[in-house]
């Protein structure tokens, strides 16, 4: 169990993590979601005592990280960036970790086997591919056979087979009663693996909910309509009390499962329809909507080169939350 209480981290002026409180419970996979720069990795570093919190507290099974004398047997972590010396072999890297925690050296072979790196155990880690590096990081996390596992973007750089493997690994670990805390940018990935969801944006808690609840609340259904008789249909819908959510020039959107009602209404009013399709918003969209106001690093659409027309120039930094309604 990991408990965060008002956890805050400031780097100079920049507030990376802002008053975060939540609990990561055992026996389930807790997904930790947020856009780039939301503060996921910073939070995880604070859990491990690598970064000192500016305010607040984080405890592992009721203890501060630095009170754990053999921490690797309590909590294993895969960090964001590669965290080893490229000149050391995978075996020796894991061996020095094992020794520092009094873990028997036989365990090194076991975890190398588990992650599938036995064949390259004596090779320098410098030559490892992204995916092999990720596996080595996971081997380090599993080394102490800990009760809590924390993975920072574990699927990063893994091939589809590797992604599949990670998913199963996390499920197996949680199934054994361990606490699994995993960060990601991808809602779709989390929907497949996580039981519980913590979403942050700009260091703030945006959601702390079970995956099932999140799906139920956020998979909005709506009806997509295209018609050449836009005005007449709008009038008819208005008359029938059906609210139009999005009335672009080309398509109209109506909330809910109302395709039958809309179709019949159109027929009665002799409106031609080119499209009438029930839709379901993806979880990815729900996630983007949730975090829309807190996305820090926006990409801008458009040509990468050439002069930019004045009205399209990058907007000046807007105060936080000023554009959230537009999302």
């Amino acid at each position, binding site marked *: 169990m990991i408990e965060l209480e008002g956890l805050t981290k400031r780097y100079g002026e920049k507030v990376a993590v802002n008053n975060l409180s939540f609990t990561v419970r055992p026996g389930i996979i807790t997904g930790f979601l947020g856009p780039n720069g939301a503060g996921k990795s910073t939070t995880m570093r604070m859990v491990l005592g690598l970064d000192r919190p500016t305010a607040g507290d984080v405890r592992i099974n009721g203890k501060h990280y630095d009170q754990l004398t053999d921490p690797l047997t309590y909590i294993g972590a895969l*960090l964001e960036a590669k965290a080893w010396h490229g000149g050391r072999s995978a075996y020796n890297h894991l061996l020095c970790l094992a020794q520092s925690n*009094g873990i028997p050296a036989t365990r090194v072979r076991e975890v190398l086997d588990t992650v599938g790196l036995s*064949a390259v155990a004596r090779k320098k880690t410098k030559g490892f591919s992204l995916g092999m590096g990720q596996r080595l990081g996971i081997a380090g996390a599993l080394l102490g056979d800990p009760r809590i596992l924390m993975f920072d973007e574990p699927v990063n750089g893994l091939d589809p087979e590797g992604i599949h493997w990670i998913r199963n690994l996390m499920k*197996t670990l949680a199934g054994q009663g361990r606490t699994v805390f995993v960060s990601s940018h991808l809602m779709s990935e989390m929907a497949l693996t996580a039981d519980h969801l913590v979403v942050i944006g700009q260091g703030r808690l945006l959601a702390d909910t079970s995956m099932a609840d999140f799906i139920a609340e956020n998979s909005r259904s709506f009806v997509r309509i295209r018609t050449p008789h836009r005005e007449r249909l709008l009038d008819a819908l208005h008359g029938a009390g059906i609210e139009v959510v999005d009335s672009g020039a080309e398509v109209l959107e109506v909330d809910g499962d109302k395709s039958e009602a809309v179709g019949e209404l159109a027929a009665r009013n002799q409106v031609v329809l080119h499209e009438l399709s029930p839709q379901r918003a993806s979880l990815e969209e729900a996630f983007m909507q949730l975090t829309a106001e807190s996305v820090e690093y926006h990409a801008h659409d458009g040509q990468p080169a050439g002069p930019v027309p004045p009205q399209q120039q990058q907007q000046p930094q807007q105060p936080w939350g000023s554009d959230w309604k537009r999302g």
Partner: protein
Amino acid sequence: MSTPQPPTPQAAPDWHPAPASPYPTYTSPIPVVRTTLVHALASEWTKIKSVRSTMWTLGVFVLLVIGIGLLTGAVVANSSSDLAGESALSLGFFGLLLGSICVITLGVMTTASEYGTGMIRTTMTACPSRGRVLTAKAIVFFLVAFVVTLVSATLVALAHVAMLEGNGAADPTGTEWLKGTVGVSLYIALLGLLSLAVGSVIRHSAGAITIMIGVLLAPLVIALFMFSESLKDVQQALFEYSIPNQMSIFYANSLSESGPSGWDPLWILLGVTAAAFAGAFALLEKRDV
């Protein structure tokens, strides 16, 4: 690469969820250990011997000390020069002066390279007591540096005494032996230890090595180019307290009359290193990894 398997009960047969509790919990078959400095020492020992840079720096060190030592010994032995009653040990100085750059490099790398590679995050996660990590590194490094220097310096000293018998060299006294082997080795290992502390503070290998080579050579070089009469005293002090001059005191051939003498260089360096470590420990506790 073979297809990896998720850990299954066959990997550790007695994996099982513990019985009834508010949450299902997992109990590991791995015994719980109260770790101590001994664990950290074992870990650091594995680390220092499992990277090639250690072998390189120490290899070059031994080569420089023994190579230059034998070379100067041979040159002096074959010339008609007369040592006029001086001890033969002093010829070991040049090799050790150059070799000390290798020890400085290794000292810096022991701490700073972990920051460059990101290893430090793994290290500090495995051992959250930051002071213990730095202590373990310091002990392991110091012992390695001291033993390697002592062996090289002693070999060279024995060779010199044997080679220069015919050149009027005096038989070294017991104290001269002690200072010229154990003393100078302690001094060089301490210099490396200072570099290790600087590496921990600077967290950047190239930067810390540059600083330490500056500390090693700059005072002497600056003193050489201080021609102004008004700076005579400063020049004198820079010269006397420069590391090469202090190192030469271990061979009792101090280049000046005043300034440190006897075992002073060791105590001076010990004080400086202790101060550097106090700073390194304080910063390590305060800063983020």
